[in-house]
């Protein structure tokens, strides 16, 4: 046995660095060549390494202690057809560990119509809650203290009446404007790019956006006046470099609108927030979250040179992707969503919606909502995800991806600028995002298909995206609100939404996305 050394006395020495594995690169849809292995040489010379969370340019995170003192907010997006059902669902979820609300509105509400309007027949209660008047908004938040609960509202086109009704609902609870916290999506540019629930043309739409900046900066200092959204771009097929670039370009355009309306940049820029998609390319998603913070700080500094550091700091909500989910064999969606959630939080998002496994089929049941919420609770309580700030920071692979993705995005932003900014570019018809194309969905999906094709017991997946009885009930509520509004005097006016201008012919997107 003379060949075996005495290990008890053998010191531990790590091996000298080994040569990196060589091989053909993987060309990602972003046009980034990913090598089989990364080492220190791959990040040598990058000026993006290091840095500190809470300090510009914020690559490692917007806050100094990140999840160590405040884990991300678990914010599940939901809206059932009626205010009563939605309210009951919210209250059950808040009791089960959710920390913030995120409201999905129905298509009629998005388009600015009352539920009894003939143009929205069939859309009432579709993919969210129908809100016609203060009666509905009051019911929606019944028993939910608006001074404590941050509320995110996915509303873009009909943003004025919805924000007004929310404020009034708060007033009725005795909550002053300044105590309201949450986010309104208010991102009209991406409605022209992808989602199509706009009401007015770009220029007057931008006027509404900057009016809301002005109002909230005076009245609602804890409220995010916009959620600048890349989510829908990735859902529509955009690669991550484009999601990043066009969203940041939108953001700069909004700041320009605010400044042009006479607002000092530091009066509203700290309340801008962003909304990312988390797709399946885990490490690219981590890099995207990091690159986004860096680029926002860089772009803001260069154009507006704000004095308040918070104007440079990008804070994001993230939702796991809908495009990666499958409508058959839905339990595969549990690991998909879990991986996306690991990436989003690994990239240090501020809040997160995890999709339910039946998201592609239906509104979540209590069962599926539980699994998606537990995905986040698990990550916070059991996975160690909150232990270290920017845990992937320094990784030769992730740092290189971060820099490469940032460089790609800057090229796209320069293209948009050459056209005069995003609003102009949209009018010129620029961004029809290149598609992920054939690389996109589930390789080997056939193998993952359930040969039995039977529905798993807990999944009651019919088309539950809409409660079939909701439309009739909502008509009756809308009429009741109208009668009250016309009552001669006395009671508070219910604040029914006025008649909206006729929307043009466009169809509304039916996927549910949050703010």
């Amino acid at each position, binding site marked *: 046995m003379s060949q075996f050394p005495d290990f008890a006395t053998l010191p531990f020495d790590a091996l000298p660095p080994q040569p990196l594995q060589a091989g053909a690169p993987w060309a990602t849809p972003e046009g980034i060549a990913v090598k089989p292995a990364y080492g220190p040489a791959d990040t040598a010379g990058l000026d993006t390494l290091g840095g500190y969370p809470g300090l510009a340019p914020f690559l490692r995170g917007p806050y100094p202690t990140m999840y160590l003192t405040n884990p991300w907010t678990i914010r599940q997006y939901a809206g059932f057809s009626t205010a009563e059902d939605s309210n009951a669902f919210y209250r059950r979820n808040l009791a089960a560990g959710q920390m913030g609300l995120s409201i999905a509105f129905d298509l009629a509400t998005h388009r600015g119509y009352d539920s009894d309007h003939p143009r929205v027949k069939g859309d009432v209660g579709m993919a969210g809650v129908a809100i016609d008047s203060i009666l509905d908004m009051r019911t929606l938040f019944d028993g939910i203290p608006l001074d404590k609960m941050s509320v995110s509202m996915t509303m873009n086109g009909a943003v004025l009446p919805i924000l007004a009704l929310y404020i009034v609902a708060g007033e009725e609870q005795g909550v002053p404007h300044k105590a309201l916290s949450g986010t309104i999506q208010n991102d009209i540019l991406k409605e022209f790019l992808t989602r199509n629930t706009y009401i007015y043309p770009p220029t007057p739409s931008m006027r509404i956006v900057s009016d809301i900046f002005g109002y909230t900066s005076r009245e609602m200092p804890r409220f995010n006046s916009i959620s600048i959204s890349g989510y829908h771009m990735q859902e529509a097929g955009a690669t991550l470099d484009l999601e990043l670039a066009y969203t940041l370009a939108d953001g700069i355009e909004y700041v320009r609108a605010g400044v042009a309306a006479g607002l000092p940049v530091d009066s509203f820029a700290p309340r801008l927030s962003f909304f990312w998609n988390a797709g399946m390319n*885990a490490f690219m998603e981590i890099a995207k979250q990091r690159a986004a913070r860096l680029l926002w700080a860089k772009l803001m500094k260069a154009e507006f040179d704000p004095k308040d550091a918070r104007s440079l700091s990008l804070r994001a909500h993230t939702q796991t992707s809908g495009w990666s989910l499958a409508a058959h064999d839905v339990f595969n969606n549990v690991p998909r969503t879990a991986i996306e959630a690991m990436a989003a939080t690994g990239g240090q998002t501020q809040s997160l919606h995890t999709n339910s496994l039946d998201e592609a089929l239906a509104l979540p049941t209590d069962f599926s909502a539980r699994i998606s919420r537990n995905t986040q609770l698990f990550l916070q309580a059991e996975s160690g995800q909150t232990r270290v700030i920017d845990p992937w920071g320094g990784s030769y692979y992730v740092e290189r991806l971060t820099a490469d993705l940032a460089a790609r995005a800057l090229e796209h932003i320069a293209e948009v600028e050459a056209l005069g900014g995003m609003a102009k570019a949209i009018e010129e018809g620029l961004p029809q995002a290149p598609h992920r194309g054939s690389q996109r969905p589930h390789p080997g999906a056939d193998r993952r298909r359930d040969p039995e094709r039977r529905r798993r017991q807990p999944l009651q997946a019919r088309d539950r995206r809409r409660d079939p009885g909701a439309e009739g009930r909502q008509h009756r509520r809308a009429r009741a609100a109208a009668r009250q509004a016309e009552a001669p005097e006395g009671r508070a006016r219910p604040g029914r939404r006025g008649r909206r201008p006729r929307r043009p012919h466009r169809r509304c997107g039916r996927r549910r996305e949050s703010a």
Partner: protein
Amino acid sequence: MADAPALTADFAAATEAQWRALVDKTLGETPFESLTGATAEGLAIAPLYAQAPAAQAPARAVPADRAWDVATLTAHPDPARANAEILADLRGGSAAAVIRIDPTGAAGVAIGSAADLARALDGVILEFAPVALDAGFLGPQAADWLAAAAKASPTALVRFHLDPLSAFAEAGASPGPIEAHLISAANTAVRLAETYPQSQLFLASGRAVHEAGGGEAGEIAFAAAAAVAYAKALVRAGLPMADAFGRVTLGLSADADYFTTIAKLRAARAVWARIAQACGADPTARIEARSSRRMLAARDAWTNMIRLTAAGFGAAVGGADSVILGNFTDALGLPSAFARRQSRNTQLVLMEEAHVGRVADPAAGSGYVESLTDQIARAAWTKFQAIEAAGGAVPALQGGRIAEAVDAAKAARPAEPRIIGVTAFPPAQETPVEVELAAARPAQTQPSARLPGPDSACPPLKPIRIAEPFEAAK
């Protein structure tokens, strides 16, 4: 790199002092040290890390076609049903099978003869689909049965995975002297090694330490000591030294705490490399990672789907060559076809959709992972040296040293852990899960693992489930 654009030129470099001032403002009276954490073995975890100047562990070379072996474990007592499960898994995208054998049918497939194993492997082409055994003290006999099934094909991808030390550690006893089991296993292994040049002979596993509640360094130390014991036994039985190390696979667990899993697997590669290099053997480790069973909950078992995803991610990113994910219902009974499909699909989603295996060692350079890797590797080395100083794995087990380290790690964990669905946010109403009901029908032949001589004994490493004490109380 010359192609890196200036991205941060507009900003003055932030300093640590500036950051600490902001942290102090956030924390108020609370000291900065409140932000530091530690593993169950007391290894420190800082709140923030700078990039590491170099990787602390050798990277695994990732095959271009399949990043790792998607493996599934079969333990159905009926060999015919076990066969159906294996074939369904292979057709469904898994690449390798593991068969747990127990002739009584109580804790594995009721296989007691070569014919029984042949039944379980009916239709499996061993030249394409690696088959591994998990047969405890029956390992040498099971290895002969598997060899019979492989019909002397020199390209058969068989993994005999002899591992008498894990069987001894778990049971706290061996039928006959444990030293005799090591010799018997090595003799069988050397006899089969030449016929099956691609076979793996031993599994040096630290999983018994993990499942009993032990920490990462303790797990690696035990696996390393077992590897050395097996290599020595192989050399004594006639195998050349270099060949001996190349025929031993490292077995490690992967759990929900996935950064720790990543660091643990990397640390294990560093420790293995040091041992093999000191013996003049190839420093490349082969790692079989199996998802932790102790992390699984019986209550609200659906949440285990998420735990298993994190474990699979950690195993893959940590660089396992082969990954076995358990089933989300494992704490309740045998898996249904649905649970098995879920388990292998989780791996396929990680590999094919999340691109987790595209890059070798994706965490390399992360100050956090590198620091944890290095600390775990050094702590494991110290523990391994203590085991060797005590005379090796067998005396260390018998002297209670391993069990004591496990108990210390167990005691260092929170007494009231947060377990989603059990101690935190239990469901108002359980949504039941399906499990297979199968009466244990013993195999016709009940082989004996007994060897001549007195039994050996050691303090057993009893498997735990962290959620179990809290499930009973509810």
